[in-house]
């Protein structure tokens, strides 16, 4: 596919050159060679999470060609590195254009992770002696890392104006190893971290054709997308089960799928500066998966339907699962600006995802399970109106109403949303624009009580739970911003946002969420000798939730019941205090010759989880108090970086940059501090871990020197 696309690129570029009339040819471009030296202590994977800084050379290049109506552009960045990209485009103005891109994105998680498994990177993880050794120093080492490559190409034709035709294709691959976790036995067993292979390919093709000529535009597009997972299952020897040949366990990996979407869009200009826009789309996604007829269960007798000890057999109504979603999207919008002081919009949107996947009945001993394919539809309508008022005020208001209906979800099958917006802008003076906005969301959820089989049915607790994604909700959002530009060389901005969400029907679950944020930034050119810039952001986030802990077989579901030592409520209030700032200066020491850039950025986050047992007069579990259970290091981190860069422009064709960059990352989190690869080998305190994300701290210095030649 890549070679074919390159061939197309070559053909088109040759066409460009061959067909170009004898007009003046313009060629320009630049090439940069960079030498880099990296000195790092700590986790290289986090430092290079999405990039590839290392010792050695890299380069960038740009090339532009023009002749008459024809043009060609080529750009390459980070040549030879894992984050390299290439973009080749060109065409004939007003007739056609093509674009071919290749882009790599690394995603590094943890280097030098450890596992007792052999075969890492493949779909079969095994180990020798059972149980696996807990001496993790002898385990295999590997990297949790993914490499995404995206190759795309497209051509847009405008030869037969007002008609157009576009075609594009892309292939995205993603390869590497990623951490998964499984319960050894369930429930109540150890956890096992598995290095899972990732080997995905996504192929896309899009065709579009249309007509654009005032007052009408019409287009139709077809998108086909195919996802291929080279591995359908990850097989692993399960160390939590008896050591028999039948203990190869299986984790199901994402299934292959095919998806298409057919989309029709149109707009029609109407008198009085009005426009009607419509969008009608249908789509479908399908998958097929061979279901297993047994699972590792550590049973001692041979399962009747499979004849294997250590596995439980299941009876399925069908051993192949065929998944199918059908989607429909309709959008109609009427916009109008009939008078210079008045504008408005009316809209209606409809989205439906119908789930036509197989319903499979699973009989597992005394238990029967039936999957409930989930689908939904959303209808939303509303309007917006805006007025220009005297004294340079602009007032706008909007209202929308939405209904969401769900199938395959028992707790909240329906929501009704009312959304109100109002915004006031003022630009009455030359040096400032001020905005204030308020939004209110009022969501009413239709809760459906669960069908329960008796007083001990665990579903009784559903009566008190409201899941925050669909629960009744009142949310207020306030926004204020000021943009100052008192003189041409000075800009200063200030913004504040406050969001408060309350879930009035929720007893158990998320009850309240608050977010406060302030942002300030400025930019100043000082006597053409220096540019100073900086920003400061602050954010405070709070989530409050009430939960209930219950033993099995209980009937004490009601949170209003007096607490006992095993059936009680608890609360958690999580807060995050985040702030960041950046300061920088471009000092034009010798204008157009010597420039010095100084820059620093800092980010800090402090999280806290305030937990409380609501046990009344009952004692807390041994060794715990309502203060030593709180968590003060809850995804805390600091990122500090400095950059010093000297830029020397020798002449218009040659420039040099020399510099130093420093970055330090300090992470502190209760869930990872004191990390143990094998904290235990049995029970809920047990696990075989691999070190995924365990210690992301680093301190890095990067020294760089580059030369750029222009022509």
């Amino acid at each position: 596919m890549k070679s074919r696309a390159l061939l197309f690129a070559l053909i088109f570029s040759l066409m460009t050159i061959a067909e170009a009339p004898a007009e003046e040819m313009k060629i320009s471009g630049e090439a940069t060679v960079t030498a880099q030296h990296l000195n790092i202590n700590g986790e290289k994977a986090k430092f290079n999470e999405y990039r590839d800084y290392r010792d050695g050379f890299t380069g960038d290049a740009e090339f532009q060609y023009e002749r008459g109506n024809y043009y060609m552009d080529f750009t390459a960045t980070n040549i030879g590195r894992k984050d390299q990209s290439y973009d080749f485009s060109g065409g004939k103005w007003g007739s056609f254009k093509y674009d071919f891109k290749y882009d790599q994105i690394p995603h590094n998680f943890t280097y030098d992770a450890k596992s007792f498994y052999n075969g890492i990177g493949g779909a079969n993880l095994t180990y020798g002696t059972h149980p696996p050794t807990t001496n993790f120093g002898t385990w295999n080492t590997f990297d949790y890392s993914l490499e995404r490559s995206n190759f795309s190409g497209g051509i847009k034709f405008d030869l037969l104006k007002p008609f157009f035709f576009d075609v594009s294709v892309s292939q995205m691959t993603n390869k590497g190893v990623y951490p998964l976790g499984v319960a050894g036995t369930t429930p109540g067993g150890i956890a096992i971290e598995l290095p899972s292979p990732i080997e995905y390919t996504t192929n896309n093709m899009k065709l579009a054709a249309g007509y654009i000529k005032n007052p009408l535009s019409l287009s139709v597009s077809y998108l086909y997308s195919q996802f291929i997972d080279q591995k359908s299952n990850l097989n692993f020897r399960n160390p939590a089960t008896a050591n028999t040949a039948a203990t190869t366990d299986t984790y199901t990996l994402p299934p292959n799928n095919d998806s298409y979407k057919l989309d029709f869009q149109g707009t029609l200009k109407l008198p009085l500066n009005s426009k009607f826009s419509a969008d009608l789309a249908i789509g479908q996604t399908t998958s097929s998966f061979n279901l297993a007829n047994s699972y590792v269960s550590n049973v001692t007798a041979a399962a009747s339907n499979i004849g294997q000890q250590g596995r439980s057999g299941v009876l399925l109504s069908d051993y192949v699962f065929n998944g199918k979603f059908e989607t429909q999207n309709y959008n109609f919008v009427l916009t109008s600006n009939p008078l210079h002081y008045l504008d408005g919009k009316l809209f209606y949107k409809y989205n439906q995802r119908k789930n036509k996947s197989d319903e499979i009945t699973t009989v597992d001993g005394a238990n029967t399970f039936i999957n409930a394919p989930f689908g939904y539809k959303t209808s939303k309508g509303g309007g917006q109106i805006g007025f220009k008022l005297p004294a340079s005020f602009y007032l706008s208001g909007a209202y929308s109403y939405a209904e969401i209906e769900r199938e395959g979800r028992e707790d909240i099958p329906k929501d009704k949303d009312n959304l109100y917006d109002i915004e006031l802008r003022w630009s009455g003076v030359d040096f400032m624009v001020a905005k204030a906005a308020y939004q209110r969301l009022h969501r009413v959820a239709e809760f459906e009580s669960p069908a329960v089989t008796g007083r001990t049915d665990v579903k009784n607790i559903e009566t008190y739970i409201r899941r925050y994604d669909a629960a009744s909700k009142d949310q207020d959002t306030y926004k204020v911003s000021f943009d100052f530009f008192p003189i041409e060389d000075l800009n200063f901005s200030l913004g504040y946002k406050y969001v408060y969400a309350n879930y009035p029907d929720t007893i158990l679950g998320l009850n309240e969420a608050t977010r406060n944020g302030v942002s300030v930034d400025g930019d100043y050119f000082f006597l053409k000798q220096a540019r100073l810039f900086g920003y400061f952001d602050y954010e405070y986030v709070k989530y409050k939730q009430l939960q209930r802990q219950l033993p099995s077989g209980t009937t004490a579901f009601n949170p209003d019941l007096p607490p006992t030592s095993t059936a009680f409520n608890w609360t958690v209030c999580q807060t995050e205090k985040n702030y960041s700032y950046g300061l920088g200066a471009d000092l034009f020491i010798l204008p157009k010759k010597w420039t010095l850039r100084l820059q620093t950025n800092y980010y800090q986050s402090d999280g806290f989880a305030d937990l409380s047992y609501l046990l009344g007069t009952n004692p807390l579990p041994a060794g715990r108090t309502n203060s030593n259970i709180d968590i003060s290091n809850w995804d805390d981190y600091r990122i500090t970086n400095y950059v010093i860069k000297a830029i020397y422009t020798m002449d218009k064709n040659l420039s040099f940059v020399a510099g130093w960059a420093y970055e330090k990352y300090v992470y502190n989190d209760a869930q990872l501090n004191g990390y143990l690869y094998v904290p235990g080998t049995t029970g809920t305190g047990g696990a075989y871990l691999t070190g995924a994300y365990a210690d992301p701290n680093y301190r890095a210095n990067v020294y760089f020197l580059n030369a750029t030649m222009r022509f």
Partner: protein
Amino acid sequence: MRRFLFFLPVLPISMLLWGVLPSGEVGGSEGIVGSEICKGCHEDHYQSYLKSTHAKKGIPGSPASKDACESCHGPGAAHVEKSGERGVGIFIFSKRIADAKSKSAKCLSCHEENRDLSSWDLSKHKSSDVSCDNCHTVHSGTRKNLKAAQPDLCNICHRSIRMQQNKTSHHPIREGKLKCTDCHDHHGGFGPRMVKSKTFNDLCYSCHAEKRGPYMWDHPPVDENCLTCHTAHGSNHAKLLVSKIPELCQSCHDWTQHPGSIYTNQNTFQGNARSNRMFARACLNCHSAIHGSNAPSARGKTHVR
């Protein structure tokens, strides 16, 4: 659904009513003086214009192939007659003189029949008084005539997003491997929050196609909206999650035994009652298949295989 029925008569009646009313469009172009005259006083502007795509005569309909400076600024005769008096008879792309709609209208007079701009009227940018020249410079020769590179250009207005992008868990935006416009249709479209797809999930699936399923055991909030659990621009928590696990999972899953149990500082590696439901990746230590599973029986239903 009934509440939407009122739209049905509104649309055709509106169209019919406005169809019989006169159009507000005006036109006419006299008094062209030519760019040499403009250059005489505005040499700097003229030189920067020469570097721009607008100055390419080979582009059909470009200012260079029409009236050059006066294609956008209007006929200059009156301005010249008044000895170049500021703002007389010509159109200036200044926020202090022209409003956003007027400025965009100037650009759209040539670019309106561009397929990437056919939904400009639907864009939040338009209704928020953002004009083309907020992001594009009509002079100079930068790529796509942008005034700055992304994400800095977008962050000038979207300041709260800047803070999200700086968080430890983020898409590779600040590394330059993902641009705002990879996900958002800055010129408008039918998607929510100006995203390039009809739904948020469709957008996420365009890069994360493995999450599309369809799975036998799905996870409804995940299938309805990725943003139930994830935030797109940045988070303090791994995997761009909106809050930390196990609390995030427990806010929905509060049943008997371990889903509803309280996990505290004492259940971490350094606590007195270690639990694999709390240390390391908490719930994800066992329940990795949270986007869906095809595993048999309760193994699939509880997303552990």
